[in-house]
């Protein structure tokens, strides 16, 4: 089984109600094609196989905010490393998105993206810095730019902005 398959199987354990439906390979391709076609509509939580040549990633996972730590533990067990954490301010949908990029350092190349949506007024998400210490600085930076609170972070102080900064510059409605 290729790494992409193995990772997908492991991540599907986050969605117990979807496991039964996805064992049929033809149905899998149909599912991912359908999900691509329905990109304009709201995407449902789940694992999607993406085309590496256009998107740059192999797997795309959408989950709830409280599932990111479980997803990080699965990735850690499979031997991935955390490459980056980004935040996106979706002001039109009144949501904030947190994107985790995972990558492998052996020959089986597989890039995985984990996304979670948070409400824009009170964006809170548990920290993954217990699993990956790299997240410590990435989360501090995302907090600086967007004001997202990472609950459980040991040291959530400004990293790139001055220590007494109380503004979050990358929000879409930020006025300097």
């Amino acid at each position, binding site marked *: 089984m290729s790494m992409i398959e193995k990772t997908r199987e492991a991540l599907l354990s986050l969605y117990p109600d979807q496991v039964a439906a996805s064992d049929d390979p033809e149905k899998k391709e149909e599912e991912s094609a359908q999900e691509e076609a329905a990109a304009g509509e709201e995407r449902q939580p789940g694992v999607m196989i993406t085309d590496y040549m256009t998107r740059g990633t192999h797997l795309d996972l959408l989950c709830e905010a409280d599932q990111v730590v479980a997803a990080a533990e699965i990735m850690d067990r499979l031997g991935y490393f955390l490459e980056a954490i980004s935040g996106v301010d979706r002001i039109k949908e009144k949501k904030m998105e947190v994107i985790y990029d995972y990558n492998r350092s052996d020959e089986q190349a597989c890039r995985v993206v984990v996304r979670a949506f948070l409400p824009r007024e009170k964006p809170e998400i548990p920290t993954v810095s217990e699993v990956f210490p790299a997240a410590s600085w990435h989360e501090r930076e995302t907090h600086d730019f967007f004001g997202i609170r990472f609950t459980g972070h040991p040291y959530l102080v400004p990293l790139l*902005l*001055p220590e007494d900064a109380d*503004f979050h*510059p990358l929000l879409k409605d*930020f006025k*300097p």
Partner: protein
Amino acid sequence: MGKENVPSSVIQFAALDTLLNLGRANSLWPMTFGLACCAIEMMCTGGSRWDISRFGAEVFRPSPRQSDVMIVAGTITKKMAPGVKTLYDQMPEPKWVIAMGNCAISGGPFKFKGNYNVVEGADQFLPVDVYIPGCPPRPEALLEGIMVLEEKIIGKRRKSWPRRQPEKIGSLT
């Protein structure tokens, strides 16, 4: 930062002043204050191709207490600005400031509508003597800046390096 009165010297020299200025100008000791990309061009100027040592300025001192000129090479951000001012205050008189690169002159490429972190120019809080434009300026531009500063200190330009007039466009065939 309040106003500070720098008292004039108790002892006034006359003709000896010229000699002292000549000495100061020909041995300007810069402070290693490379902040960003312009610092690399400053290092190149200290290298062997564009030898800054010919003009007496190769002794880059890390400590402000031992330097004459602060070459602000790079972008000044709001977090760094108090540090720059402290370093400037720690330098003993007589001291000069060269603003090297577009960022030190006016914020450079980082001056845009949503600017929240870049100080637009070193002259917002420092008295700048020489401005060297470029992004980054070539080492030859930094050498010309040093010579302009020497001219400012002595009163006339070094005879062996006259200021070149720009060629008419199309005159080089």
